[in-house]
């Protein structure tokens, strides 16, 4: 198939960017979207031009490194799929595809399509973990957890932290990401111990990173490659409300 690609090019963070148009022939419909970009980059390198910077790692939909906004949708048109798992068979021959980086003040563009998503890492560092003493892990079955609760926690834990929720949100809110991390730990006995401190610290960090506020638009859920539900946001709001009014933290 033959494609016209309109791709955002920006040499570095503080330099103005613009769209460049490329045409690419002989694209196999079996290629993944990233493989298509690899082919384009090989072509650009061969022509002594600077290849396009984009992020990728596992290429099997589990690491959350790939991003891109394809024709206005984070991770492209296919629901519940990361860009690396999106194949060219989902596009038409002769189609023009617009490829942009995630847009959010909290995600500055580093180069071309690559953005700095460190803000999400700092939210995790603020509380997205459990503190455990080192030593031998006890038998997992020794802690009784109801199946439904375990499933809910697992669903929240499938968040790969790719930031598509922030990219899709008209307010650039990171509530879906933060709530998935809060929910996955708050639902389990191991996470309940620090639940109050965790939600207060993570929300505080989220606010410091200049993300927007949630307006319950639900674009995050619609674009999330893992289908994380906005019901997690309600859960986080409950956790935050109760922690604000009853935690041992005087502030």
């Amino acid at each position, binding site marked *: 198939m033959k494609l016209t690609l*309109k791709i955002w090019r920006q040499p570095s963070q503080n330099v103005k960017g613009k*769209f460049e148009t490329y045409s690419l022939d002989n694209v196999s419909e079996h290629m993944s979207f990233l493989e298509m970009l690899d082919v384009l980059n090989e072509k650009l390198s061969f022509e002594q031009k600077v290849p396009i910077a984009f992020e990728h790692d596992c290429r099997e939909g589990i690491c959350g490194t790939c991003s891109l*906004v394809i*024709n*206005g*949708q984070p991770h492209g048109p296919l629901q519940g799929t990361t860009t690396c798992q999106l194949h060219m068979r989902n596009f038409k021959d002769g189609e023009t595809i*617009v490829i*942009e980086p995630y*847009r*959010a*003040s*909290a995600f500055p563009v580093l180069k071309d399509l690559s953005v700095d998503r460190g803000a999400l890492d700092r939210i995790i560092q603020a509380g997205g973990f459990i503190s455990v003493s080192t030593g031998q892990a006890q038998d997992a079955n020794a802690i009784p957890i109801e199946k439904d609760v375990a499933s809910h926690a697992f669903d929240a834990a499938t968040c790969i932290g790719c930031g598509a929720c922030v990219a*899709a949100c*008209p*307010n*650039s*809110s990171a*509530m879906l990401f933060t709530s998935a991390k809060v929910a996955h730990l708050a639902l389990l006995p191991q996470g309940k111990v620090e639940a109050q401190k965790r939600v207060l610290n993570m*929300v*505080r960090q*989220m*606010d410091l990173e*200049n*993300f*927007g*506020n*949630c*307006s*319950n*638009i*639900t*674009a995050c*859920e*619609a*674009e999330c490659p893992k289908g994380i539900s*906005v*019901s997690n*946001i*309600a*859960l*986080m*709001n*409950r*956790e*935050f*409300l109760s922690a*604000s*009014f009853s935690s041992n*933290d*005087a*502030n």
Partner: protein
Amino acid sequence: MSWMTNALKPIGLVWFANFLTSSIGKKLLMSLSGLFLILFLPVHLIGNLQLLTKDAGVSFNLYSYFMTHNPLIKTVSYLLYFSIILHTIQGLLLWRKNKMAKGKIGYAVSALRGDGTNVKAAANMAWLGIIIFVFIAVHMYQFWLQMKLGKVPMVIIEGTEYKNLYEPVVLAFSNPGFVLFYVVSMIIIGIHLNHGFQSSFQTLGLNHKKYTPFIKYIGRVYAFIVPFGFAIIPIIVYGRNNLWW
């Protein structure tokens, strides 16, 4: 909003200031003030329906006298003014913050999708809200302020003199331009409420498999019935003035 932290520090409520100025706290204020306004609207509507009674405005004028003289209603009305101002200012502040969070460069292609709500309404609550605020300002100037400042003709009902608010209201509703403005404003309010109703519950954390589908359903019904009730009144009054029915 460090002024709030400074104000609440001497009374030992730093945590409360931190809560109110957090992203979730700000949304909580939007939610609670919005829900209060949602509770108020049907009460206002019941009063307005008195306009339709064919008694030359007697029941409407008695109702408006009651609303401006009952001490409980007067107390609640201050909470209402406060809610309108809080919802407006907080909404504008959040809107500005969200715009800054999105950054200067938007997407060249926009393909907004959502699930379980009116996404276009949800993404444009601020614009809808601004139109509603303009409507409320015009509305308060035209009826509420005139009633308060007494530039209203008087009428005698059963030997007692009352302000005849019925007369300026019916006069306003005889202007087709105003009727159109009123009806369009009600449609905008309906769209705003269609998202706002269920959104306020979600913000409060009230999301549950058993109740959320029902809340969403009731929200849609409410967002249709209440603005429809308001909008039908000027249409009926206009029709009566023009002897359509």
